[in-house]
């Protein structure tokens, strides 16, 4: 008993202050949002698109990266002879519309907006989610679980994972939706009372990820249910997931500086 109290003193208070203070700094080699400088692209070059394992890069006149397919592996960056693609440490990546995940050199990313006033009133202070894992690698699940640890303490935002769809306000879906999980996912969705929201976390749930095109999967959750928030990554960093959830609930004010340090973004 005495040792337990001493250990409590040793371990201290470790919950991050974010979003009231800047988030913990990310590792130097962290791969967040990629940036393309199309002006550097040699004529007719498609090496990035050929190197991409998930066909996330399309080149019409200039390259576009679909972050919904991107594994953030940097195979494109390493294949590019001109240094036209690089990965920044920008962790803010969540969007409300699928097409907003396609980034190019001309546009700023349109990050997720908050739910409408009615839903924000219902879920803003208490959001109970049922998690459905369906045909992935357990990487996204691991980093969703991390949000429940003392370091992140998701509970302080009123967000909680519940043990029944009947208790839930929505689903958080991971995985490419295997054919073998299709029925279980649609039954779970139907069991959540309306109004409800759906959050797709990770490349698999958005596009099928590395399994896109396999007959064993459905290339993401959108084939089965309507999606309200897309959180890209393979897997997304816990900070990316938390940022997405807080944006959806309107708990992050635009314009407030929440950048971990000045080196990311640009």
């Amino acid at each position: 008993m005495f040792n337990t109290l001493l250990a409590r003193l040793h371990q201290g208070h470790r919950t991050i202050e974010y979003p009231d203070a800047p988030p913990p700094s990310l590792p130097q080699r962290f791969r967040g949002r990629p940036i393309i400088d199309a002006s550097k692209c040699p004529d007719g070059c498609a090496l990035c698109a050929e190197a991409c394992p998930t066909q996330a890069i399309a080149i019409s006149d200039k390259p576009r990266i679909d972050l919904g397919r991107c594994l953030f592996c940097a195979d494109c960056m390493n294949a590019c002879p001109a240094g036209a693609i690089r990965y920044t440490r920008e962790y803010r990546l969540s969007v409300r519309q699928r097409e907003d995940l396609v980034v190019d050199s001309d546009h700023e990313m349109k990050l997720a907006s908050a739910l409408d006033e009615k839903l924000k009133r219902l879920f803003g202070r208490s959001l109970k989610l049922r998690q459905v894992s369906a045909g992935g690698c357990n990487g996204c699940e691991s980093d969703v679980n991390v949000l429940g640890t003392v370091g992140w303490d998701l509970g302080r935002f009123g967000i909680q994972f519940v043990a029944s769809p009947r208790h839930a306000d929505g689903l958080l879906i991971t995985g490419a939706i295997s054919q073998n999980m299709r029925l279980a996912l649609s039954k779970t969705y139907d069991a959540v009372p309306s109004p409800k929201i759906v959050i797709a976390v990770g490349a698999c749930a958005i596009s099928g990820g590395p399994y896109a095109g396999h007959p064993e999967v459905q290339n993401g959750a959108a084939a089965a249910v309507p999606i309200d928030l897309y959180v890209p990554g393979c897997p997304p960093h816990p900070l990316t997931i938390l940022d997405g959830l807080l944006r959806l609930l309107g708990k992050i004010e635009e314009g407030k500086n929440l950048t971990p340090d000045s080196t990311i973004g640009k």
Partner: protein
Amino acid sequence: MTSSATLTPILDRLATLANGRAIDRAEVPELSFDDFQQAILAAVQLQQRVVALFGMLDPDPEIVPLYLVLADDQQSLLRLARTRVRGDRFPSLTPRCPQVHLFEREIGEQFALRAEGHPWFKPLRYHRSYRPGYDAWAEAKPSVAEAKPSVAEAKPSAAGPESQPPIVGVTDFYRVDGDEVHEVAVGPVHAGVIEPGHFRFQCHGEDVFHLEISLGYQHRGVERALIGGPNPRSIHYAETLAGDTSVAHATAYCQVFEALARCQKTARAQTLRGIALELERLANHVGDLGALAGDVAFLPTASYCGRIRGDFLNMTATLCGSRFGRGLIRPGGVAFDVDAAILDDLLKRLDASEKDCKNAVDLLWDSPSVMSRFEDVGRVSRAAAQDLGLVGPAARACGLQRDARHDQPSGIFRFAHIPVSTCDSGDVFARAYVRWLEVQHSIDFIREQLRALPSGAVRGDVKPPCPDQLAVSLIEGWRGELCHVALTDSNGRFQRYKVVDPSFHNWTGLAYALRNQQISDFPLCNKSFNLSYCGHDL
């Protein structure tokens, strides 16, 4: 009991291979089916293990070639053989050799061969067979009209006309009948952030007579998709076979690739791979110790370990940008080097995390309320572990000296030895304590390697794989031994790529641990194994 002298002649006919090496496919001897099975029985009697047993497609659809990889841990050697099955069935070896039970079910499902006499011949992952038009369960299946409407709707729209696709979770589950016997069914969707799987308990009051585990919900067709590679996706398939085991699976893949392509790796690359592998073990073992504490409602260790796990994941992210080691292990070596500043930073963080970790975990062994819940719960005997072919901490917790880093060393582990940690009680306590011993050894190993990192390049030239080769790679991941086997065709492409995740061996161990236990102890027993659904389902 047959003496070893009469057992060895048949084993002498098998080809031998060191872990992480390749052999000409022509040098793998083809045995008659009977000799093939006799070789397995002889090896198992000599305490050797079946690490892979799998089929592949043949140009003749009437024939299924089978390949066997045995591990002779005493001699640190692998033994290889092949045979051919003609037709649609073969006699099962499972009644005489339980450790092949899932391999035979897998062969049955993938190549539509009935294992005649298998006591538990059911689908494993619920997918169509790889031999078009052939199905091991064709006779047993209901037509669409007979199936329940809601289930019939669940059929994939892409289903071809030749036979009904299997319906996941629909099989003849083992049942115990009786007035006071009841059945508890759980899953596939679980009450937490957990992968999908289905569990059926046959209970008498609170006591579990039997647990049947039915998986396949995470099946995403990775083995099938690896055929024809290597291509830009191959390494990413390896990294996502089991996402919490990315480093171990990517290392196994790269070792297979390098053996097929006859590539050399630098000492620096091999050391960095070893460091990443042990960081992966640390993160997961520490997370498991915290989760075990959580399952017995001991919140201090649960809270602290949940956070300390993140410290180790973040060290991996310092190496390569990804907390799971994605992008680090690549054919020819590793994709990221470390400089003095990173080494220094990692050593400091390792010291701090070691202190926090020891402080948090020692509480478990000091708290009688924890120990009384860990001890004598979910016991697996040494004999059962041996028979079932368990691997990893689950096997070592039953007293088996079994660790691929020691028995079949590859990479850095040929030069730097990590002691094998065992415990003999086979219960939840033993599985927790083995993890704690391994945590301490891994920290020592990483510190030693960071301080004496060899100089040189981290990545060499990579050539394409050679044609008509077979390569085997065993890696001791944090859950236990994982095995990759690749066979190349005449163009050097993967003609077959077999993955055996440690969970494939160990799920039956969990079912066994639950016998005669209270059903309320299931979460605790389950966590003490912490097996992978996606690694099993592929």
